Protein backbone atom coordinates (compact mmCIF):
# COMPACT_ATOMS: atom_id res chain seq x y z
CA UNK A 1 0.00 0.00 0.00
CA UNK A 2 1.49 3.32 -1.08
CA UNK A 3 1.92 5.87 1.68
CA UNK A 4 -0.46 8.78 1.87
CA UNK A 5 0.89 12.22 0.76
CA UNK A 6 1.99 14.75 3.35
CA UNK A 7 -0.68 17.45 3.69
CA UNK A 8 0.10 21.14 4.11
CA UNK A 9 -0.57 20.91 7.80
CA UNK A 10 1.34 20.47 11.06
CA UNK A 11 2.66 17.02 11.88
CA UNK A 12 4.55 15.66 14.86
CA UNK A 13 7.90 13.92 15.15
CA UNK A 14 6.99 10.52 16.56
CA UNK A 15 9.43 8.92 18.96
CA UNK A 16 9.21 5.31 20.23
CA UNK A 17 8.08 6.43 23.69
CA UNK A 18 4.83 7.76 22.18
CA UNK A 19 4.01 4.79 19.95
CA UNK A 20 1.73 3.14 22.49
CA UNK A 21 -0.26 6.33 23.02
CA UNK A 22 -0.67 6.92 19.28
CA UNK A 23 -1.70 3.35 18.54
CA UNK A 24 -4.21 3.31 21.38
CA UNK A 25 -5.79 6.73 20.83
CA UNK A 26 -5.19 7.34 17.08
CA UNK A 27 -4.96 11.13 17.56
CA UNK A 28 -5.92 13.40 14.68
CA UNK A 29 -2.37 14.25 13.61
CA UNK A 30 -1.99 15.18 9.89
CA UNK A 31 1.31 13.29 9.53
CA UNK A 32 4.14 11.77 11.51
CA UNK A 33 7.85 11.96 10.92
CA UNK A 34 10.10 9.17 12.16
CA UNK A 35 13.84 8.69 12.31
CA UNK A 36 14.78 6.29 9.53
CA UNK A 37 17.52 4.50 11.45
CA UNK A 38 15.12 3.35 14.18
CA UNK A 39 13.46 1.11 11.61
CA UNK A 40 16.43 -0.36 9.78
CA UNK A 41 15.74 -3.47 11.82
CA UNK A 42 13.76 -6.07 9.93
CA UNK A 43 11.39 -6.99 12.70
CA UNK A 44 10.41 -6.74 16.32
CA UNK A 45 7.92 -4.78 18.37
CA UNK A 46 9.17 -1.34 17.31
CA UNK A 47 9.02 -2.20 13.64
CA UNK A 48 5.55 -3.69 14.07
CA UNK A 49 4.33 -0.51 15.78
CA UNK A 50 5.84 1.54 12.98
CA UNK A 51 3.94 -0.52 10.40
CA UNK A 52 0.70 0.12 12.29
CA UNK A 53 1.30 3.87 12.36
CA UNK A 54 2.27 3.88 8.72
CA UNK A 55 -0.97 2.17 7.75
CA UNK A 56 -3.07 4.93 9.32
CA UNK A 57 -1.03 8.12 8.86
CA UNK A 58 1.05 9.87 6.18
CA UNK A 59 4.70 9.24 6.99
CA UNK A 60 7.95 11.14 6.47
CA UNK A 61 11.30 9.41 7.05
CA UNK A 62 13.99 11.63 8.54
CA UNK A 63 17.56 10.31 8.52
CA UNK A 64 20.17 11.31 11.07
CA UNK A 65 23.05 8.95 10.32
CA UNK A 66 24.07 9.05 6.67
CA UNK A 67 26.78 11.72 7.14
CA UNK A 68 26.35 13.20 3.68
CA UNK A 69 29.01 15.84 4.33
CA UNK A 70 31.76 13.46 5.45
CA UNK A 71 34.90 13.51 3.34
CA UNK A 72 34.74 9.79 2.72
CA UNK A 73 32.57 7.41 0.75
CA UNK A 74 28.99 7.04 1.88
CA UNK A 75 28.31 3.94 3.94
CA UNK A 76 26.88 1.47 1.44
CA UNK A 77 25.26 -0.63 4.16
CA UNK A 78 23.48 2.43 5.49
CA UNK A 79 22.35 3.40 2.00
CA UNK A 80 21.12 -0.11 1.34
CA UNK A 81 19.21 -0.21 4.61
CA UNK A 82 17.55 3.12 3.85
CA UNK A 83 16.63 1.99 0.36
CA UNK A 84 15.15 -1.25 1.65
CA UNK A 85 13.10 0.66 4.21
CA UNK A 86 11.98 3.28 1.69
CA UNK A 87 10.90 0.64 -0.83
CA UNK A 88 8.87 -1.13 1.79
CA UNK A 89 7.32 1.91 3.45
CA UNK A 90 7.04 4.23 0.43
CA UNK A 91 7.12 7.33 2.63
CA UNK A 92 5.75 10.58 1.28
CA UNK A 93 9.00 12.37 2.13
CA UNK A 94 12.58 11.34 2.83
CA UNK A 95 14.99 13.81 4.38
CA UNK A 96 18.56 13.98 5.67
CA UNK A 97 20.89 16.68 7.01
CA UNK A 98 23.42 19.12 5.66
CA UNK A 99 26.15 17.93 7.99
CA UNK A 100 28.88 15.39 8.52
CA UNK A 101 29.35 12.83 11.27
CA UNK A 102 31.97 10.25 10.30
CA UNK A 103 35.62 10.23 9.27
CA UNK A 104 38.40 7.67 9.29
CA UNK A 105 36.08 4.76 9.98
CA UNK A 106 34.63 6.30 13.16
CA UNK A 107 31.06 7.55 13.39
CA UNK A 108 30.34 10.37 15.80
CA UNK A 109 26.55 10.07 15.42
CA UNK A 110 26.07 13.82 15.53
CA UNK A 111 25.13 16.51 13.02
CA UNK A 112 28.48 18.29 12.72
CA UNK A 113 28.90 21.58 10.84
CA UNK A 114 30.59 21.97 7.48
CA UNK A 115 32.68 24.88 6.26
CA UNK A 116 30.73 26.62 3.52
CA UNK A 117 33.34 26.21 0.79
CA UNK A 118 33.27 25.10 -2.83
CA UNK A 119 35.06 21.91 -1.76
CA UNK A 120 32.32 21.03 0.73
CA UNK A 121 29.62 22.02 -1.74
CA UNK A 122 31.03 19.74 -4.44
CA UNK A 123 31.15 16.84 -1.97
CA UNK A 124 27.58 17.43 -0.82
CA UNK A 125 26.32 17.66 -4.40
CA UNK A 126 28.02 14.35 -5.20
CA UNK A 127 26.70 12.56 -2.11
CA UNK A 128 23.17 13.92 -2.43
CA UNK A 129 23.20 12.76 -6.05
CA UNK A 130 24.33 9.31 -4.95
CA UNK A 131 21.58 9.19 -2.34
CA UNK A 132 18.88 10.26 -4.78
CA UNK A 133 20.12 7.79 -7.40
CA UNK A 134 20.06 4.98 -4.84
CA UNK A 135 16.56 5.83 -3.68
CA UNK A 136 15.28 6.74 -7.13
CA UNK A 137 13.59 9.84 -5.77
CA UNK A 138 14.16 13.42 -4.64
CA UNK A 139 15.12 13.99 -1.00
CA UNK A 140 14.94 17.01 1.27
CA UNK A 141 18.09 18.33 2.98
CA UNK A 142 17.81 20.05 6.35
CA UNK A 143 19.90 22.99 7.52
CA UNK A 144 21.46 22.15 10.90
CA UNK A 145 22.14 24.21 14.00
CA UNK A 146 25.78 24.93 14.79
CA UNK A 147 27.97 26.34 17.50
CA UNK A 148 30.94 26.91 15.22
CA UNK A 149 31.46 29.05 12.16
CA UNK A 150 34.56 28.35 10.10
CA UNK A 151 36.63 31.38 9.13
CA UNK A 152 37.57 29.97 5.75
CA UNK A 153 33.97 29.61 4.58
CA UNK A 154 33.56 31.46 1.30
CA UNK A 155 29.75 31.26 1.19
CA UNK A 156 27.08 32.13 3.70
CA UNK A 157 24.99 29.23 4.98
CA UNK A 158 22.00 30.33 2.90
CA UNK A 159 24.14 30.74 -0.24
CA UNK A 160 25.49 27.24 0.34
CA UNK A 161 21.99 25.80 0.75
CA UNK A 162 20.64 27.55 -2.33
CA UNK A 163 23.61 26.37 -4.40
CA UNK A 164 23.27 22.80 -3.11
CA UNK A 165 19.60 22.69 -4.00
CA UNK A 166 20.24 24.17 -7.46
CA UNK A 167 23.11 21.80 -8.30
CA UNK A 168 21.72 18.57 -6.87
CA UNK A 169 18.02 19.08 -7.56
CA UNK A 170 17.15 18.10 -4.01
CA UNK A 171 14.55 19.90 -1.94
CA UNK A 172 14.99 21.75 1.31
CA UNK A 173 13.71 20.95 4.76
CA UNK A 174 13.91 24.38 6.35
CA UNK A 175 14.41 24.14 10.10
CA UNK A 176 13.31 27.57 11.28
CA UNK A 177 14.55 26.92 14.81
CA UNK A 178 18.00 26.14 13.43
CA UNK A 179 17.98 29.34 11.40
CA UNK A 180 17.20 31.31 14.54
CA UNK A 181 19.74 29.44 16.70
CA UNK A 182 22.47 30.02 14.13
CA UNK A 183 21.54 33.68 13.72
CA UNK A 184 22.21 34.20 17.44
CA UNK A 185 25.25 31.96 17.57
CA UNK A 186 26.88 33.47 14.50
CA UNK A 187 25.45 36.97 14.42
CA UNK A 188 23.39 37.31 11.27
CA UNK A 189 19.89 38.47 10.45
CA UNK A 190 17.65 35.38 10.24
CA UNK A 191 15.30 37.18 7.88
CA UNK A 192 18.15 37.50 5.39
CA UNK A 193 18.50 33.71 5.52
CA UNK A 194 14.78 33.17 4.89
CA UNK A 195 14.72 35.75 2.10
CA UNK A 196 17.47 33.88 0.24
CA UNK A 197 15.57 30.58 0.12
CA UNK A 198 13.53 29.94 -3.05
CA UNK A 199 10.00 29.11 -1.95
CA UNK A 200 9.58 26.36 -4.51
CA UNK A 201 12.37 24.19 -3.09
CA UNK A 202 11.06 24.06 0.47
CA UNK A 203 9.18 20.81 1.01
CA UNK A 204 8.84 20.98 4.77
CA UNK A 205 9.51 23.18 7.78
CA UNK A 206 10.75 22.03 11.19
CA UNK A 207 10.08 23.72 14.52
CA UNK A 208 11.64 22.82 17.88
CA UNK A 209 12.78 24.28 21.16
CA UNK A 210 16.24 25.55 22.08
CA UNK A 211 18.00 26.31 25.35
CA UNK A 212 20.40 29.09 26.28
CA UNK A 213 23.93 28.03 27.23
CA UNK A 214 25.16 30.28 30.03
CA UNK A 215 28.65 31.02 31.25
CA UNK A 216 30.53 31.22 27.98
CA UNK A 217 30.97 34.99 27.82
CA UNK A 218 28.69 35.37 24.81
CA UNK A 219 25.22 34.39 23.66
CA UNK A 220 24.93 30.77 22.59
CA UNK A 221 21.81 28.77 21.92
CA UNK A 222 21.73 24.98 21.99
CA UNK A 223 19.35 23.18 19.63
CA UNK A 224 18.16 20.95 22.44
CA UNK A 225 14.73 19.76 21.19
CA UNK A 226 13.67 19.45 24.82
CA UNK A 227 11.21 22.31 25.29
CA UNK A 228 8.49 24.35 23.61
CA UNK A 229 9.15 26.51 20.56
CA UNK A 230 10.48 29.91 21.59
CA UNK A 231 8.49 33.08 20.84
CA UNK A 232 11.32 34.37 18.65
CA UNK A 233 11.07 31.20 16.55
CA UNK A 234 7.30 31.54 16.25
CA UNK A 235 7.90 35.07 14.93
CA UNK A 236 10.41 33.77 12.42
CA UNK A 237 8.04 30.95 11.43
CA UNK A 238 5.35 33.51 10.60
CA UNK A 239 7.91 35.43 8.58
CA UNK A 240 8.94 32.27 6.75
CA UNK A 241 5.34 31.38 5.93
CA UNK A 242 4.76 34.86 4.56
CA UNK A 243 7.82 34.45 2.33
CA UNK A 244 7.47 30.81 1.37
CA UNK A 245 3.74 30.26 1.49
CA UNK A 246 2.06 27.44 3.41
CA UNK A 247 4.33 24.43 3.90
CA UNK A 248 4.01 21.12 5.73
CA UNK A 249 5.39 21.80 9.19
CA UNK A 250 6.65 19.50 11.91
CA UNK A 251 6.97 19.82 15.68
CA UNK A 252 10.16 18.09 16.85
CA UNK A 253 10.85 17.09 20.45
CA UNK A 254 13.58 14.52 21.05
CA UNK A 255 14.75 14.61 24.65
CA UNK A 256 12.90 14.97 27.95
CA UNK A 257 9.80 13.95 26.04
CA UNK A 258 6.62 15.44 27.51
CA UNK A 259 3.13 13.96 27.36
CA UNK A 260 1.88 13.67 23.82
CA UNK A 261 -0.69 16.37 24.63
CA UNK A 262 2.10 18.94 24.86
CA UNK A 263 3.20 18.10 21.32
CA UNK A 264 -0.41 18.37 20.18
CA UNK A 265 -0.62 21.79 21.80
CA UNK A 266 2.53 22.95 19.99
CA UNK A 267 1.02 21.57 16.81
CA UNK A 268 -2.17 23.55 17.49
CA UNK A 269 -0.19 26.79 17.82
CA UNK A 270 1.69 26.11 14.60
CA UNK A 271 -1.56 25.31 12.84
CA UNK A 272 -2.98 28.69 13.86
CA UNK A 273 0.03 30.38 12.25
CA UNK A 274 -0.16 28.16 9.18
CA UNK A 275 -3.89 28.80 8.71
CA UNK A 276 -3.32 32.55 9.06
CA UNK A 277 -0.53 32.50 6.49
CA UNK A 278 -0.85 35.08 3.71
CA UNK A 279 2.04 34.58 1.32
CA UNK A 280 3.95 37.76 0.60
CA UNK A 281 5.96 36.53 -2.34
CA UNK A 282 4.68 33.10 -3.27
CA UNK A 283 2.69 34.37 -6.23
CA UNK A 284 5.53 36.50 -7.58
Amino acid sequence: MRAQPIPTAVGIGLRPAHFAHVLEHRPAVPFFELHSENFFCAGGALREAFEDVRNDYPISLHGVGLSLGSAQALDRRHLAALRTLARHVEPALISEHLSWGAIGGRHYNDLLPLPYTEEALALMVSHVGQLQDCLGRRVLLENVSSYIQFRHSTLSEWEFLAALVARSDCGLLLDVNNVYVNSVNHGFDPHQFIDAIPAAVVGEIHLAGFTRKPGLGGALLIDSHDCRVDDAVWDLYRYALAHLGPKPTLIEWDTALPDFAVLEDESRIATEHLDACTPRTIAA
Partner: protein
Amino acid sequence: MPAPRAPSLPELQHAFAAVLRGADGLALSPWIAARGIAPVDRLRIYRHAGYAIHVDALATSFPAVRSLLGEACFDGIATRHAARQGSRHGNLQQYGADFATFLDQQPELSGWPWLGALARLEWLRQQVALAADVAAADGRLLASVNAPWRLRPCVRVLVSPFAVLDLWRHALAPSDHGIDPAIAQSLLLWREGGQVAMREISPAQASFVHQLRQGATPALALAAAQDIDPAIHPESLLAPLLEHALFAAPTITEDCP
Protein backbone atom coordinates in the same frame (compact mmCIF):
# COMPACT_ATOMS: atom_id res chain seq x y z
CA MET B 1 54.65 35.95 7.15
CA PRO B 2 52.14 34.33 4.74
CA ALA B 3 48.74 33.33 6.09
CA PRO B 4 48.53 29.63 6.84
CA ARG B 5 46.71 27.50 4.31
CA ALA B 6 43.13 26.72 5.21
CA PRO B 7 42.59 23.04 6.02
CA SER B 8 41.08 20.85 3.36
CA LEU B 9 37.76 19.25 4.23
CA PRO B 10 39.36 15.89 5.18
CA GLU B 11 42.02 17.69 7.26
CA LEU B 12 39.38 19.73 9.05
CA GLN B 13 37.19 16.72 9.76
CA HIS B 14 40.08 14.64 11.09
CA ALA B 15 41.12 17.53 13.36
CA PHE B 16 37.51 17.98 14.51
CA ALA B 17 37.22 14.25 15.15
CA ALA B 18 40.35 14.36 17.32
CA VAL B 19 38.62 17.00 19.45
CA LEU B 20 35.57 14.79 19.78
CA ARG B 21 37.84 12.01 21.08
CA GLY B 22 39.41 14.32 23.66
CA ALA B 23 42.07 16.52 22.00
CA ASP B 24 42.18 20.17 23.10
CA GLY B 25 41.20 21.70 19.76
CA LEU B 26 44.02 24.23 19.61
CA ALA B 27 44.98 23.10 16.11
CA LEU B 28 41.48 23.82 14.87
CA SER B 29 40.95 27.06 16.79
CA PRO B 30 42.49 29.45 14.23
CA TRP B 31 39.80 28.40 11.76
CA ILE B 32 36.87 29.01 14.08
CA ALA B 33 35.27 32.43 14.54
CA ALA B 34 35.26 33.34 18.23
CA ARG B 35 32.52 36.03 18.49
CA GLY B 36 33.05 36.38 22.22
CA ILE B 37 33.34 32.65 22.96
CA ALA B 38 36.68 30.86 22.85
CA PRO B 39 36.83 28.34 19.99
CA VAL B 40 37.91 25.60 22.40
CA ASP B 41 34.74 26.24 24.41
CA ARG B 42 32.64 26.00 21.27
CA LEU B 43 34.37 22.72 20.37
CA ARG B 44 33.86 21.41 23.89
CA ILE B 45 30.08 21.64 23.35
CA TYR B 46 30.37 19.14 20.52
CA ARG B 47 32.65 16.84 22.52
CA HIS B 48 30.25 16.73 25.45
CA ALA B 49 27.23 16.31 23.19
CA GLY B 50 28.95 13.44 21.40
CA TYR B 51 29.78 11.69 24.65
CA ALA B 52 26.21 12.16 25.87
CA ILE B 53 24.78 10.66 22.68
CA HIS B 54 26.90 7.54 23.08
CA VAL B 55 26.41 7.21 26.82
CA ASP B 56 22.64 7.40 26.32
CA ALA B 57 22.83 4.74 23.60
CA LEU B 58 24.78 2.38 25.87
CA ALA B 59 22.43 3.08 28.77
CA THR B 60 19.52 2.04 26.56
CA SER B 61 21.20 -1.17 25.44
CA PHE B 62 22.73 -2.18 28.80
CA PRO B 63 20.17 -1.37 31.52
CA ALA B 64 21.20 -4.23 33.81
CA VAL B 65 24.89 -3.32 33.67
CA ARG B 66 23.93 0.30 34.40
CA SER B 67 21.73 -0.73 37.29
CA LEU B 68 24.49 -2.75 38.93
CA LEU B 69 27.24 -0.17 38.36
CA GLY B 70 25.15 2.83 39.30
CA GLU B 71 24.52 5.81 37.06
CA ALA B 72 27.70 7.75 37.78
CA CYS B 73 30.07 4.80 37.39
CA PHE B 74 28.30 3.57 34.26
CA ASP B 75 28.36 7.02 32.69
CA GLY B 76 32.08 7.34 33.40
CA ILE B 77 32.92 4.01 31.81
CA ALA B 78 30.56 4.62 28.90
CA THR B 79 32.20 8.00 28.28
CA ARG B 80 35.59 6.32 28.26
CA HIS B 81 34.28 3.78 25.76
CA ALA B 82 32.92 6.57 23.56
CA ALA B 83 36.28 8.35 23.56
CA ARG B 84 38.47 5.29 23.02
CA GLN B 85 36.37 2.90 21.00
CA GLY B 86 33.55 4.97 19.56
CA SER B 87 30.97 3.99 17.04
CA ARG B 88 31.52 2.27 13.70
CA HIS B 89 28.00 2.80 12.38
CA GLY B 90 25.72 5.67 11.48
CA ASN B 91 22.92 3.74 13.16
CA LEU B 92 23.20 3.88 16.94
CA GLN B 93 21.28 0.62 17.26
CA GLN B 94 24.55 -1.04 16.28
CA TYR B 95 26.65 0.82 18.82
CA GLY B 96 27.84 -1.28 21.74
CA ALA B 97 28.79 -4.60 20.16
CA ASP B 98 32.24 -4.37 21.78
CA PHE B 99 31.10 -2.97 25.13
CA ALA B 100 31.26 -6.34 26.89
CA THR B 101 34.90 -6.83 25.89
CA PHE B 102 35.63 -3.25 26.92
CA LEU B 103 34.19 -3.93 30.38
CA ASP B 104 36.36 -7.05 30.68
CA GLN B 105 39.41 -4.85 30.12
CA GLN B 106 38.69 -2.16 32.73
CA PRO B 107 41.00 -2.61 35.74
CA GLU B 108 38.57 -1.13 38.26
CA LEU B 109 36.00 -3.77 37.33
CA SER B 110 38.32 -6.73 37.92
CA GLY B 111 36.41 -7.58 41.11
CA TRP B 112 33.28 -8.13 39.02
CA PRO B 113 34.56 -10.57 36.38
CA TRP B 114 31.00 -11.46 35.38
CA LEU B 115 30.07 -7.92 34.31
CA GLY B 116 31.26 -8.44 30.73
CA ALA B 117 29.20 -11.63 30.52
CA LEU B 118 26.13 -9.71 31.66
CA ALA B 119 26.80 -7.13 28.95
CA ARG B 120 27.05 -9.94 26.37
CA LEU B 121 23.62 -11.11 27.43
CA GLU B 122 22.19 -7.60 27.09
CA TRP B 123 23.72 -7.17 23.66
CA LEU B 124 22.22 -10.49 22.58
CA ARG B 125 18.85 -9.33 23.89
CA GLN B 126 19.10 -6.29 21.63
CA GLN B 127 19.93 -8.49 18.63
CA VAL B 128 16.92 -10.66 19.44
CA ALA B 129 14.65 -7.63 19.80
CA LEU B 130 15.66 -6.23 16.39
CA ALA B 131 15.89 -9.48 14.40
CA ALA B 132 13.78 -10.02 11.31
CA ASP B 133 10.25 -11.33 11.61
CA VAL B 134 9.98 -14.77 10.02
CA ALA B 135 7.08 -17.11 10.42
CA ALA B 136 7.63 -20.41 12.15
CA ALA B 137 8.21 -23.39 9.88
CA ASP B 138 5.84 -26.30 9.62
CA GLY B 139 7.11 -29.11 11.82
CA ARG B 140 6.97 -31.50 8.86
CA LEU B 141 9.95 -29.62 7.33
CA LEU B 142 12.08 -31.28 9.97
CA ALA B 143 11.79 -34.68 8.31
CA SER B 144 15.32 -34.79 6.90
CA VAL B 145 18.29 -34.94 9.21
CA ASN B 146 20.73 -34.40 6.35
CA ALA B 147 19.52 -30.96 5.27
CA PRO B 148 20.17 -27.85 7.46
CA TRP B 149 17.31 -26.75 9.67
CA ARG B 150 16.96 -22.98 9.70
CA LEU B 151 16.07 -21.23 12.91
CA ARG B 152 14.08 -18.01 13.18
CA PRO B 153 16.46 -15.01 13.00
CA CYS B 154 15.61 -14.03 16.57
CA VAL B 155 17.10 -17.22 18.08
CA ARG B 156 20.36 -16.85 20.01
CA VAL B 157 22.26 -18.88 22.59
CA LEU B 158 24.72 -17.77 25.23
CA VAL B 159 27.09 -20.09 27.03
CA SER B 160 28.53 -18.30 30.01
CA PRO B 161 30.81 -19.29 32.88
CA PHE B 162 28.67 -17.02 35.07
CA ALA B 163 25.09 -16.99 36.32
CA VAL B 164 24.12 -14.34 33.80
CA LEU B 165 20.36 -14.95 33.85
CA ASP B 166 20.25 -14.72 37.64
CA LEU B 167 22.43 -11.60 37.56
CA TRP B 168 20.26 -9.97 34.91
CA ARG B 169 17.08 -10.62 36.85
CA HIS B 170 18.63 -9.40 40.08
CA ALA B 171 19.93 -6.21 38.41
CA LEU B 172 16.51 -5.19 37.15
CA ALA B 173 14.38 -6.57 39.97
CA PRO B 174 16.58 -6.99 43.06
CA SER B 175 15.55 -9.69 45.50
CA ASP B 176 16.83 -11.01 48.78
CA HIS B 177 17.77 -14.35 47.24
CA GLY B 178 21.51 -14.87 47.18
CA ILE B 179 23.24 -15.31 43.82
CA ASP B 180 26.45 -17.17 43.19
CA PRO B 181 27.80 -15.49 40.06
CA ALA B 182 30.33 -18.28 39.53
CA ILE B 183 27.67 -20.84 38.56
CA ALA B 184 27.78 -21.35 34.79
CA GLN B 185 24.57 -20.84 32.83
CA SER B 186 23.64 -21.53 29.20
CA LEU B 187 20.71 -19.60 27.81
CA LEU B 188 18.33 -19.77 24.88
CA LEU B 189 16.96 -16.40 23.76
CA TRP B 190 14.14 -15.70 21.30
CA ARG B 191 11.30 -13.27 20.70
CA GLU B 192 7.75 -14.05 21.72
CA GLY B 193 4.83 -11.66 21.47
CA GLY B 194 7.19 -8.81 20.66
CA GLN B 195 9.20 -9.34 23.84
CA VAL B 196 12.59 -10.96 24.33
CA ALA B 197 12.27 -14.32 26.08
CA MET B 198 15.02 -16.27 27.84
CA ARG B 199 15.34 -19.66 29.49
CA GLU B 200 18.17 -21.72 30.81
CA ILE B 201 19.17 -24.76 28.76
CA SER B 202 21.93 -27.33 29.10
CA PRO B 203 25.36 -26.80 27.53
CA ALA B 204 24.62 -29.66 25.12
CA GLN B 205 21.36 -28.05 24.06
CA ALA B 206 23.17 -24.76 23.61
CA SER B 207 25.77 -26.42 21.42
CA PHE B 208 23.03 -28.02 19.33
CA VAL B 209 21.29 -24.67 18.75
CA HIS B 210 24.60 -22.94 18.06
CA GLN B 211 25.48 -25.51 15.41
CA LEU B 212 22.09 -25.16 13.74
CA ARG B 213 22.51 -21.37 13.70
CA GLN B 214 25.84 -21.90 11.95
CA GLY B 215 24.11 -23.93 9.24
CA ALA B 216 25.20 -27.38 10.37
CA THR B 217 23.05 -30.35 9.46
CA PRO B 218 20.97 -31.86 12.28
CA ALA B 219 23.30 -34.85 12.32
CA LEU B 220 26.37 -32.67 12.84
CA ALA B 221 24.57 -30.55 15.43
CA LEU B 222 23.58 -33.72 17.28
CA ALA B 223 27.17 -34.95 17.21
CA ALA B 224 28.40 -31.65 18.65
CA ALA B 225 25.84 -31.86 21.45
CA GLN B 226 26.79 -35.46 22.23
CA ASP B 227 30.45 -34.44 22.44
CA ILE B 228 29.37 -32.46 25.50
CA ASP B 229 26.79 -34.92 26.86
CA PRO B 230 27.08 -38.42 25.29
CA ALA B 231 23.84 -39.51 26.94
CA ILE B 232 21.68 -36.69 25.67
CA HIS B 233 18.66 -37.73 23.64
CA PRO B 234 17.74 -35.95 20.36
CA GLU B 235 14.24 -35.31 21.66
CA SER B 236 15.55 -33.23 24.52
CA LEU B 237 17.62 -31.20 22.06
CA LEU B 238 14.60 -30.47 19.91
CA ALA B 239 12.18 -29.88 22.74
CA PRO B 240 12.82 -26.18 23.46
CA LEU B 241 12.98 -25.34 19.75
CA LEU B 242 9.66 -27.04 19.04
CA GLU B 243 8.02 -25.77 22.21
CA HIS B 244 8.70 -22.15 21.23
CA ALA B 245 8.27 -22.63 17.44
CA LEU B 246 11.82 -21.50 16.67
CA PHE B 247 12.32 -23.18 13.27
CA ALA B 248 11.88 -20.87 10.28
CA ALA B 249 12.31 -20.28 6.57
CA PRO B 250 15.36 -18.38 5.23
CA THR B 251 15.29 -14.59 4.76
CA ILE B 252 16.44 -12.40 1.86
CA THR B 253 18.82 -9.44 2.10
CA GLU B 254 19.92 -6.92 -0.52
CA ASP B 255 22.76 -4.47 -1.16
CA CYS B 256 22.89 -1.07 -2.82
CA PRO B 257 24.44 -1.00 -6.33
